[in-house]
């Protein structure tokens, strides 16, 4: 029956396409099939208001999304609207493949009111406005309540420092079945990209990560080194974090697979974590010597310069960026809306998962923007590879950081 209903819908759709001389635009994004369905709902709501425009949603996983997109754009057949990750924005903008939305925005100047300014910052360039934020992600601390309860330990609080955090992680690292190998770790992190964890750690210790304009990677400063020392101690001295090889046995997310008591992540993890069997909650990031820090990153909309229907594309972006569109988005639970009015409304705060969703919004007060520059991906993987040699014990911290700076700077130079 389902199949027949589907066929009927497809047929009806085909008919309606023939009946009207509609404009069809494509919106491509990365994400899970669930996210695709939510976007399809938003698209249907949009189509109801604009009967002459049809929106086609294309969803792919992260890696293939970018691979496919490059080829589509290079081949002159880009999706009209596509999702952008702020750090990669410059890679695309600098190559002249994005449409300047400023002329549209000038006609609708109030559209930017009530949007968190830090999310707009990533998309602002001297030559115009080549993107608008769609939603944002701040990083918070996730903890497994069952593991804390079993160890009779108090839950993390907003007064926690990284010393408290490290001590707790050590206590939560256990060999539960007594076979001589650890089967519960206090904390997990991949250790590659600055998001979710080590960027925030470096900032909390007063360090900086990168200065793309000067082509300099800054993570070997004394402040940053002190921050990395904490991570290195947890990994190599306390052994309160699983190695990459150990982690691979379970899944790439140690918190999700229930072997790590704590993890750092953004709001994107909430739908996955909501399905697990244990109890968990969220807390703010711990404080370092220079206070609390987290990173904020946003996904955005861009319109392809080669789009055949820029007006229809803009109409869709405008809708998705509006209160109505953002309210729909808030309900998915993957991200935080960029409009203050929506982020503070029940649509976002009252999601099914009973955690303090406001924490992600409050985190903006102490958040640093995840860097945005051309060549981010290559820089990130060069730095991540070099850092990984520290976490495996192959290199000393000082050598690993020196290599990360050298490789990172080389990647920056290549992408000038």
């Amino acid at each position, binding site marked *: 029956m389902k199949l027949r209903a589907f066929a009927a819908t497809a047929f009806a759709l085909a008919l309606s396409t023939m009946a009207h001389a509609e404009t069809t635009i494509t919106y491509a994004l990365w994400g899970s099939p669930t996210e695709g369905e939510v976007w399809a709902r938003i698209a249907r709501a949009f189509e109801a208001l604009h009967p002459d425009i049809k929106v086609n949603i294309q969803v792919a996983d992260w*890696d293939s999304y970018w*691979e496919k997109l*490059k*080829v589509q*754009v*290079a081949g002159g057949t880009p999706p009209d609207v596509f999702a952008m990750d702020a750090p990669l924005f410059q890679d695309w903008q600098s*190559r*002249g*493949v994005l449409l300047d939305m400023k002329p549209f925005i000038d006609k609708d100047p109030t559209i930017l009111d009530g949007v968190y300014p830090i999310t707009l910052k990533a998309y602002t360039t001297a030559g115009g406005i080549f993107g608008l934020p769609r939603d944002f992600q701040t990083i918070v601390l996730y903890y497994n309540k069952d593991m804390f309860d079993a160890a009779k330990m108090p839950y993390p609080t907003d007064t926690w420092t990284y010393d408290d955090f490290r001590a707790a992680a050590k206590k939560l690292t256990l060999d539960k079945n007594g076979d*001589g*190998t*650890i*089967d519960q770790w206090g904390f997990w992190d*991949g*250790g*590659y*990209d600055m998001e979710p964890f080590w960027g925030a750690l470096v900032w909390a210790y007063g360090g900086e990560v990168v200065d793309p304009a000067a082509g300099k990677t800054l993570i070997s400063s004394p402040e940053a080194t002190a921050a990395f020392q904490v991570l290195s101690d947890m990994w190599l001295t306390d052994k309160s974090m699983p*190695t*990459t*090889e*150990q*982690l*691979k*046995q379970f899944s*790439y997310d140690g918190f999700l697979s229930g072997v790590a008591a704590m993890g750092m992540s953004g709001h994107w993890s909430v739908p996955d974590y909501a399905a697990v069997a244990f109890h968990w909650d969220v807390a703010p990031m711990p404080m370092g010597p220079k206070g609390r820090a987290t990173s904020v990153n946003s996904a955005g909309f861009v319109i392809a310069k080669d789009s055949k229907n820029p007006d229809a594309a803009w109409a869709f972006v405008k809708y998705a960026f509006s209160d109505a569109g953002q309210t729909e988005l808030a309900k998915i639970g993957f991200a935080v809306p960029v409009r203050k009015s929506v982020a503070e409304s029940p649509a976002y705060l009252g999601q099914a998962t009973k955690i303090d969703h406001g924490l992600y919004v409050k985190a903006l007060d102490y958040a640093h923007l995840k860097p945005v520059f051309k060549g981010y*991906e*290559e820089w*990130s*993987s*060069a730095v*991540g*590879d070099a850092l*990984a*040699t520290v976490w*495996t*014990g*192959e290199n000393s911290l000082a050598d690993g950081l020196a*290599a990360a700076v*050298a*490789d990172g700077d*080389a990647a920056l130079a*290549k992408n000038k």
Partner: protein
Amino acid sequence: MPLWRKTNNVADLRPLGRERWWVLAFLLPTLLGLILGTFGSIFATIGISFFNWDLLTPAIPAGISNYVDLPADRLFMKSLVNTLVFSALYVPLTVVLSLAVAMGMNRKLWGISAFRVAYFLPTVSSPTAVGLLWTWIYAEDHGTLNAMITAMGGNPVSWLGPKMAMYSVVIVNVWGAIGGGMIIFLAGLQAIPKDYYEVARLDGATAWQRLRYVTLPALAPSIFFQAVLTTINAFQAFDYIYILTRSGNGNSTMPTLVFSIYRTGFRFFRMGDAAAQAVVLTLIIFAMTAIYFHLQKRWGEPG
């Protein structure tokens, strides 16, 4: 040199009249493949290597800078070293082990066809699937290998960690290649006339002498061919290594040249740099093959 031995036929057909068109027609796909597929691609790759090109914006002439920059590219150099070390371990191990297995198989033993199947199975199985299997065998705490080691009172080994990854990867690749080499050597061994051995035995030759003076010289063409083939495969090895050493950020903890080309070209879209790396890889393979040919010439034709 069996590879391009002249045809056995004394009288080949000489095409006449319309037959010439048939000759052309029959060769057409291959000629197109050579012109477009291989040589066209080689020239195109060489051409691209002199540009900076991201596929999105017009290519910018870069002179020889893509080559000049290679030695300073630490990730490329790491891949190059990994590939060379890998080949240096993989090629001799594969050739020697598959030769040894083939010599064992050349005896009239009970269950020999079952052995043949067993040794050949890894060769035909998808490296992607078998690679997954080996990540499980090599896994850190719960892996099969470490479970066996701890059961015998040993300390678990971090098989895919930085110290062991190279050896672990070589083991899997050799494991997957023994079968192919074995079959080629077996064919060679079975073609050696039995009376050679009879004569040698009558002369009182020891087993070692028989190996040294009868078997190995007779197998020289097979060994040569197998060494060339294994070396080419070594420099192009991708599947097992990709699956076994993939890291959390989409990179590899043991990048090889092929992986570096894939990553530079298809993930970072720096086509010029990737092309330059591909050209270097080809040159290395050609140089290695030339060395083999030179050695073969020096040590003479098989006797």
